[in-house]
């Protein structure tokens, strides 16, 4: 009798364990395969829907930088943050630099040196870097073939080529870095190196050096969702690697297509206006 009861309890326990293990195994969802391959098909137009581009860390709502000009338009929406553990682990000097970045984020670049060192690169329509391109607020398109994946972002018509079939070496540092992809089950893993030190993570002045190394993971959760995770490592700026994550949503409108946001022309008055002796438009 006792033996039977023990057996039942043990069996139930094992069953529960197995169920739990299964529940933890992501993804329960199996994405359709890319024709001619065994890998998931991630083709489509995707977008983050959050306020990470304002600030990766948890933040309350705030006014626009120019309330007298734009009223409530351009005000900052609140966000629960996308950083695992909430805070970015800055080294002390870097925490001070982040604060300065925030204070000077809309500094107009009245000298070449200032242009190089100060202000949010987004305002200048500079290529947004990784991972910021993912959540800068505009859609991006995954163009996936068996050998390469082209990531095409509306913002600044930025692009990245992800090499899937081999691992060429980066010839130089660049704004969007050098991307080597692989599959871990149904997760697309992209190892990003050779990033320069000129991009930011958000409008709050969160930043990195040229030692930045990003490992991105794109996991299909449903036909309409990807989980995006990025592990960020930069021994010059942070005390340890840290991680952000957020869902990406498939754009579902009929006849959806990527549109142009070639923002250079929207940035020129800001960047070069001080050079010109004319009343601004």
């Amino acid at each position: 009798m006792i033996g039977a009861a023990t057996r039942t309890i043990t069996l139930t326990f094992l069953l529960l364990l197995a169920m739990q293990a299964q529940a933890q195994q992501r993804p329960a969802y199996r994405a359709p395969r890319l024709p001619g391959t065994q890998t998931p098909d991630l083709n489509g137009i995707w977008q983050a829907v959050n306020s990470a581009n304002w600030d990766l860390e948890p933040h309350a709502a705030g006014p626009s930088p120019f309330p007298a000009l734009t009223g409530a338009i351009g005000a900052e929406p609140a966000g629960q943050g996308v950083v695992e553990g909430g805070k970015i682990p800055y080294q002390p000097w870097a925490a001070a630099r982040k604060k300065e970045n925030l204070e000077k984020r809309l500094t107009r670049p009245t000298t070449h040196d200032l242009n190089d060192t100060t202000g949010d690169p987004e305002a200048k329509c500079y290529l947004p870097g990784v991972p910021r391109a993912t959540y800068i607020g505009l859609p991006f398109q995954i163009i996936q073939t068996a050998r390469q994946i082209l990531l095409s972002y509306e913002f600044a018509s930025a692009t990245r080529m992800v090499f899937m079939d081999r691992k060429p070496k980066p010839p130089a540092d660049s704004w969007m870095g050098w991307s080597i992809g692989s599959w871990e089950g149904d997760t697309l893993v992209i190892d990003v190196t050779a990033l320069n030190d000129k991009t930011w993570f958000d409008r709050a002045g969160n930043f990195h050096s040229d030692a930045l190394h990003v490992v991105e993971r794109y996991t299909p959760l449903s036909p309409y969702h990807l989980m995006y995770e990025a592990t960020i490592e930069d021994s010059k700026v942070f005390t340890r690697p840290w991680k952000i994550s957020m869902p990406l949503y498939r754009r579902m409108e009929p006849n959806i297509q990527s549109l142009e946001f070639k923002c250079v022309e929207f940035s020129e008055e800001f960047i070069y206006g001080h050079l010109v002796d004319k009343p601004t438009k």
Partner: protein
Amino acid sequence: MHRFLARMSALPAAAALMLLAQMPAAGQQAATRATQKKAAPASSRFVVPHTAWGDPDLQGVYTFATLTPFQRPAALAGKDVLTEEEQKALEEQLKQKQEENIATNEHFSYNALWFASDQGRPTGRTSIIIDPEDGRLPPLTERGQKLRVEAQARAATKRIGKDQLVDTWEDISTYNRCLSRAMPRVTQEYNQGAQILQTPGYVTIFYESMHDVRVIPLDGRPHLDSAIRQWNGDARGHWEGDILVVDWTNFSDKQKSDGSAPFGGFPQGNLHVTERFRKSNANTLDYLVTVEDPTIWTRPFTFTLPWRADDPTYRGPDDLFEYACHEGNYRMLENAITAAKAVRAAQAGKK
């Protein structure tokens, strides 16, 4: 035209003929004459590969660079193709010219050395334009002429002596502003690489210069609303046999091709372009383009040039490196605007 077709020889000619034979609308005349002349010969044994989902496979890394001029030079009037000897002589001459240019460059400006690896080869024709048959752009309409005169007058107001002044960023081309490159892309100075990727329902063209991407839907959907105008327009594609036919509209008037395109300088709002891509051998994608804008040119024109996959400059996708242009443009504009101020100050001092 008959003479033109009769004298086109060898493989590229046959390929162009086949392409021409399938052209509707703008190329109709040429096509009709081409088919009347004779049925297109079986051009080669090359069989176009197909993707896993059955579309002709045009994928690859290409360069559209060529040393053949867009319009036929006056000295070659009446001559549309070069003989093999002439072609060899031309290549030799171009090589010599390049070496001389490198040897005599005292100003350390962009020279042939800088361009050396990205200039392509002559096509064997005397012009990239194949229709009109004189290899020249058609005459301008009244509006076209007026726009040209106005643009020249505008430029003249910015000229002091031999200096073309840059008082503001708007005084330089959208190309130099790192905003856009002329579309459709014809031979340009550098970074003439492009990659084609295909996914079910789409053909994507990724241009190295300006990191521009055209994702072309093949599902027959309508063009964007005419209120949506883009620097790089809006493209819809379909297959005609092995040929990708792309209908291209919705350009912005801001896109003027800047005169940097051989047919440039005009607002592109009314431009209608029909592109045809056809793989004619493992290393060549034939690119045949008909351009029409009845408000600028009195008739459509057609040009063709090869996209080559066997150029050592573009062997693979990692040869298409990031084209960060605007990001490094601060000094250029600072110097240009400062120089303009200095010239104007000197001019004021003289008065």
